[in-house]
């Protein structure tokens, strides 16, 4: 099921949450809306869901204008960051809610709930109350609840934002598998670039109510449209006016013509990667990431003087990165 948002603007008082935004979501894709807080990504998702009415613009679902259609008639599943579990209902009644609203026969509801709870790995917890579940379990329950009536589209608003890192990584991988199994068009809001890169087929980067860039994770990582996108997707270092990935900088122990000179402050061993923190001769700090063999070859120690070589800064069509570096403070 495709979703198309056309020229949508949404204001909250003086604050412009969405500023003439247009975006398309392909059928069967898993799209991530990525951006810092206040970028409008959640508002965009809520406009798609019908939980917020846009001040201007249209929302098309499966090619039909759905702008004035209330949330309950859009046939979309929505998962909230804080689960929005129905606290006075058991897991069974939570998951079966949409079916009972549609007055389906009890036997059918029972069978469907069982099937869904098995799908999300909560089989046997039917009679628990949300208070008796862990955060991860609650979110799985919320997912099962949203999937109960086979929604045309699944919308997830920072679904893993309130969970511990470990549970988060696990659920992320699980969500991707679920998406591959069910094929339901999915839109995920996140502020976590790693999450977006790992899970999504397509990423829409937002800032200040506008879309900065949309594309596949690789396109965005390798050919960012601007410094903001580059900085948001992975770590960056700055040399002069240009941004570079820290692992695209080369260090030399012999002087190189025109290359800036710097002094090693500290080296940090991060497994395969060795992070070198420098101060350039103009006083600006710089972080470089070297492979371990290269670092051993250079034998760098604090106080050493090196020359910094980089000619790849934001060069269009540069070779795809092989090993995305762990974020060194984006």
């Amino acid at each position: 099921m495709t979703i198309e948002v056309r020229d949508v603007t949404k204001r909250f008082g003086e604050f412009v949450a969405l500023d003439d935004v247009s975006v398309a979501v392909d059928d069967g894709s898993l799209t991530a809306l990525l951006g810092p807080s206040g970028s409008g990504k959640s508002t965009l998702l809520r406009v798609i869901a019908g939980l917020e009415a846009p001040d201007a613009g249209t929302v098309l679902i499966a090619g039909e204008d759905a702008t004035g259609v209330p949330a309950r008639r859009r046939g979309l599943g929505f998962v909230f960051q804080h689960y929005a579990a129905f606290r006075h209902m058991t897991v069974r009644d939570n998951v079966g809610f949409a079916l009972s609203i549609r007055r389906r026969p009890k036997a059918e509801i029972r069978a469907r709930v069982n099937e869904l709870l098995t799908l999300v790995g909560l089989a046997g917890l039917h009679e628990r109350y949300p208070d008796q579940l862990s955060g991860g379990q609650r979110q799985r329950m919320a997912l099962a609840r949203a999937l109960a009536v086979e929604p045309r589209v699944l919308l997830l608003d920072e679904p893993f934002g309130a969970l511990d890192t470990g549970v988060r990584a696990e659920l992320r991988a699980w969500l991707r598998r679920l998406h591959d199994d069910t094929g339901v068009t999915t839109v995920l809001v996140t502020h976590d670039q790693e999450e977006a890169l790992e899970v999504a087929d397509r990423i829409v980067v937002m800032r200040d109510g506008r879309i900065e860039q949309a594309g596949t994770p690789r396109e965005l990582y390798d050919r960012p449209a601007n410094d903001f996108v580059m900085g948001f997707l992975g770590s960056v270092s700055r040399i002069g006016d240009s941004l570079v990935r820290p692992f695209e900088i080369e260090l030399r122990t012999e002087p190189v013509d025109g290359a800036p000179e710097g002094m090693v402050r500290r080296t940090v061993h991060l497994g395969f990667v060795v992070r070198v923190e420098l101060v350039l001769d103009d006083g600006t700090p710089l972080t470089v990431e070297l492979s371990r063999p290269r670092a051993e070859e250079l034998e760098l120690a604090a106080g050493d003087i090196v020359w910094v070589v980089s000619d790849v800064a934001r060069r269009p069509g540069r070779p795809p990165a092989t090993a995305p570096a762990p974020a060194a403070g984006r």
Partner: protein
Amino acid sequence: MAHSRASKLTVRGLALGYMAVLVLVPVGYVLIHAFKPGLTGVWNSLTTPAAQHAIQLTVEITAIAVVLNTIFGLIAALVLERTRLRIRYVLDLLVDLPFAVSPVVVGLALLLLYGRQGWFGGWLTDHGIRIVFSMPGMIIATVFVSIPFVAREVGPALREAGTEQEQAAATLGASRLQAFWRITLPSIRAALAYGVVLTTARALGEFGAVSVVSGRIAGQTITLPLLVQQRYQNFDQTGAYVAAAFLAVIALLVLLAMTVLSPGRRKTR
């Protein structure tokens, strides 16, 4: 912070002593005096035609006032917490008004509006409608003084429950009404029950406003609290104590019933 045993005991002693002096001793005194003439005496005192009528009238007025104020209180709380209507600023003030205005003033105001010489008095008399010195006026007075409780109990519960569950219900296909019955109402149930208890207690015991609008017509507009005063003034001290004790017992039963019916209050609030 570690409290010494002595200071803990002092605090508890003070709290208990305060309650005892202000509540337990007077109520206990009333109960003891009520039973002085023995059980037969109590029974006889409660089964006089005047007492029977007062009990019936009090229960009727209370029931009507509680139903009306539960509905109004729910709507007021929903308007205050779930809408951005301008009217909510005014409503917020009005809901508290009965707390601020003395019941006697309310009674007088009703007399001025609906009494024979009042603004609507002429029209009402022409159409054969009687409000003052009869049950409608007493109901209006009781409703007015017990307005705030449901609204003020339910408001914070609505705020705490938040709107996310209602939004989730909407995305799952529930209409506003379905979401209210199946999501909102269960999550405020305990607060609502407590509000109803307070409303009931207030309506049962209302004296001032009702006293003014009732006209105290024997056998017609005498409620239990009015009966207590009437008997006391007629030097029927024991009868007054019996009626008072009966009033207290009804109030306690209501409180008990609600506590039993909504065990979740502690947990959810």
